[in-house]
């Protein structure tokens, strides 16, 4: 405290620091003499200004009334009258309210400019710091308070008070714990199908159905170059509602693309395809936008949000843009009725990266998948090396 005070001693009442740094190269001409405005000296101009202001106020009042009239006479709604491409109600209400406010504002400003005294004044400044005298008194009072309360003499209870007050932050923080379950809890408890970041509702034998309508797909339904937005049939079987349905959709969205089987350049991609039909997660591995822009001739899929581009002929690898990982591929097969089905859930978590995600390269993913699922997948026509 004392060192601060000595700093302040430099200020005195003449405030030298406020004028220290502008050497006068030219003399200060000083404040100008006041010029009277026409409205100050000419009664006609004054009357005119008064008239202008009252006209603005009058127009404002008129617009307010028009607002009320428009409110009660013009129907709102999309089907309502349309004027020049605008919704009639919105246009009438907005214009009348806008002009009511604008005219009122212009009137007040005109009043202020033409009729309110416009004489300049000069007011003295003081440094932001309090004066040394004030500061001395304040410090003395603080010291006295410290003395009288015994804060300095009884450090133990003082520290105990500070400590216990600080611990009161704990209940506030702990309370936040039940904001939501963690990924680990949800994954373990499986409160709904496909719960947790590592899972989706896809599973062995789940049919691949068309988005929106929910009809199953035969491989023959797709021609080369066709792209279909697909979902697992689970979405349409009525077992999921509300939030679990939204969560399921947000992870299970899938894209089917049929390409010439000879265009596929990656063995894993070929193993998981049916007659050149490949299925990939629709959820971008960057920040999770649903990907939708397909370049038909190149099998490139572009995310409309941040332009990450993935090559569907080559295990969905990133060929441009900010995404850090390939798109997860869904292994496809055909069930006994001839419809496309998944051979398993996605072999790796879909969508955005998260810290706990265990990330492997595509060949390791395939080896792991083969160990767990290849045998079961044979009933859906799976055969390593091509179907």
């Amino acid at each position, binding site marked *: 405290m004392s060192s601060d005070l000595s700093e302040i001693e430099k200020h005195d009442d003449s405030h030298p620091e406020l004028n220290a740094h502008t050497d006068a190269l030219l003399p200060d001409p000083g404040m100008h003499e006041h010029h009277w405005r026409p409205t100050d000296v000419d009664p006609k101009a004054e009357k005119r200004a008064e008239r202008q202001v009252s006209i603005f106020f009058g127009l404002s009042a008129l617009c307010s009334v028009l607002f009320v009239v428009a409110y009660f006479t013009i129907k709102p709604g999309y089907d309502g009258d349309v004027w020049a491409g605008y919704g009639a109600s919105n246009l009438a209400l907005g214009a009348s309210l806008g002009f009511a406010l604008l005219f009122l504002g212009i009137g007040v400003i005109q009043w202020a400019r033409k009729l309110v005294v416009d004489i300049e004044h000069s007011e003295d400044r003081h440094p932001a710091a309090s004066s040394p005298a004030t500061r001395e008194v304040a410090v003395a009072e603080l010291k006295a308070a410290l003395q009288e309360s015994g804060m300095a003499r009884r450090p133990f209870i003082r520290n105990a008070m500070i400590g216990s007050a600080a611990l009161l932050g704990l209940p506030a923080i702990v309370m936040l714990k039940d904001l939501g379950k963690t990924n680990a809890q949800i994954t373990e408890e499986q409160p709904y199908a496909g719960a947790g970041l590592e899972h989706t509702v896809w599973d062995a034998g789940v049919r691949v159905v068309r988005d929106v309508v929910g009809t199953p797909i035969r491989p023959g339904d797709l021609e080369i170059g066709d792209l279909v937005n697909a979902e697992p049939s689970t979405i349409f079987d009525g077992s999921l509602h509300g939030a679990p349905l939204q*969560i399921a959709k947000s992870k299970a969205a899938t894209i089917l693309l049929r390409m010439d089987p000879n265009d596929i350049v990656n063995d894993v991609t070929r193993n998981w395809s049916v007659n050149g039909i490949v299925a990939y997660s629709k959820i971008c591995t960057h920040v999770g936008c649903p990907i939708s822009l397909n370049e038909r001739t190149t099998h490139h899929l572009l995310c409309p949000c941040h332009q990450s581009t993935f090559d569907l002929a080559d295990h969905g690898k990133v060929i441009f843009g900010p995404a850090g990982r390939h798109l997860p591929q869904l292994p496809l097969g055909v069930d006994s009725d001839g419809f496309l089905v998944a051979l398993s859930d996605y072999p790796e978590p879909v969508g955005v990266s*998260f810290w706990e995600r265990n990330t492997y390269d595509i060949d390791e993913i395939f080896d792991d998948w083969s160990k767990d699922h290849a045998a079961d997948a044979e009933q859906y026509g799976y055969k390593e090396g091509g179907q």
Partner: protein
Amino acid sequence: MSTDTSKVAASNGTNAAAPASKPTKAGAAANWADERLGLGGLSKFLSRKIFPDHWSFMLGEIALWSFVVLLVTGVFLTLWFKPSMAEITYQGSYAPLRGIDMSEAMASTLDISFDVRGGLLLRQVHHWAAMLFIASMMIHMMRVFFTGAHRKPREINWVIGATLLLLGTLEGFTGYSLPDDLLSGTGIRAADGFMMAIPIVGTYISFFLFGGEFPGDDIIPRLFTIHVLLIPALLLALIGAHLILLIYHKHTQWPGPGRTEKNVVGYPMVPNYISKMTGFFFITFGVTALLGAFFSLNPVWKFGPYDPTKVTAGSQPDWYMGWPDGALRIMPGWESHFWGSTWSWNIFFPVIVLPMAAWMVVLMLPFIESWITGDKREHHLLQRPRNAPTRTATFVALMTFYAGFWAAGGNDIIAIKFHLSINQITYFLRAFVFLGPIVAFIITRRWCISLQRHDNEKLLHGYETGTVIRTPEGAYHEKHLPLPEDEAFAMTVRDRGRAGEEPELKKNGKLSLRAKLRAFYYDHDVDKPTPEELSEAHHHAEHEAHALAAHEGHQVDGHDFDDHRHSAIEEPLSH
């Protein structure tokens, strides 16, 4: 402060001479309030406060009034908006979506738009005012920094202002996310991706905010509470503190006749500014109302309700979120995997680290500057941007950095409109965000230094009149006239030389980092002329005037082509 109002609009004074013995009703009310609240002191303190006049001091006021418009329209919107993600079937009057399942939030937004009279207007005015709020804060911030108004004692107000800008941006994001339409849902999903990318705690943050897995059914009500309670309360408190400090410090002013570091010259709060500010509030509100009437904004009915399997092409956030989105777009796809964990540098760096770092830099600017210059004095007179070339160039460099990312946020739009390759735009912008600011810095600084030289030129040799005189020998001269007294004086009110003390050398005799930065800061800075230079120039000007006058066939006063702008001073410079 006695005012000569003898002539002021005579009609103002007709009622002023009421007898003092009989108090008016207003007087009685004021007396009643003062006896209980002691308002007299506060009123005396505030009502005759002097504020200087300049158009650029109005920019912050636009932000203030658009915030008030946001409060007013926002309260109306809460009367009809239902912050719920419960799924219902829409049965309102917008036919294309009738019978479609959507959240109550989306359905009530449609109701506000189509079934509440004036509801669409309120929505649009609220959204336009939000745009204006953030834009005016940014422009206000530029004004403050370019004119040196952030210097001591106003650094804390700068910090408060920068915090207001950050909170305003978050308020905007939480606000446009509320309707739960396809576009805003895509934004929330991206925000979930941002959170997940934070190492170690990201997944927890996301699951706590969303009440479990994305999207869940908690996020809209939670964003609503943040949007209508938490952030507005902080904004109100900080705006209050911002204004209290403004009044305590008194407003900065431009140098000019009678204006010094020790005074503030202008008009009093009452009646001048109270009336101008009231008028300006109505004008701000009126302009946003007209924008809401004539310009459609965020037509959520065209996007439809949020569906996590769908996306619209050209998905873009509101403009003020554009620059982190641009950073996200041009960032290379770097991701590392160690020991079963995934580190998403490609997301964490551009949208978490970069904006926070940029905000910290902006926050620290006044402190960094005073540390470099060693200038610890109070400043109340503003500087022209040219008179602090390095500062001006630094901020222009920061603005260029921002602009590069902002452009990247629309790289798909640029590609479509200008028929360019999106890949090449991305590669170009990756280089531009690093090289652009450097080039902008160099150009701006040289530009400022040239303007300083030009100012000195004008002080010493007068301004160009545009009158060219041919001597009998065939030589041509342009006639220069001295600057008007006020302009010349205002130009000379600035520091000579470097502020603060020269930093000491390090023990090993080398320059410290601070000393090097200080040398760089002031490098090539042009000082104002010395008194000797000024008087010599004036003598020279007199000689020249005489010499030229001898050649002149007729009297040319130099005002033939300049609308007689300086009729007050006709004699040549002589001091």
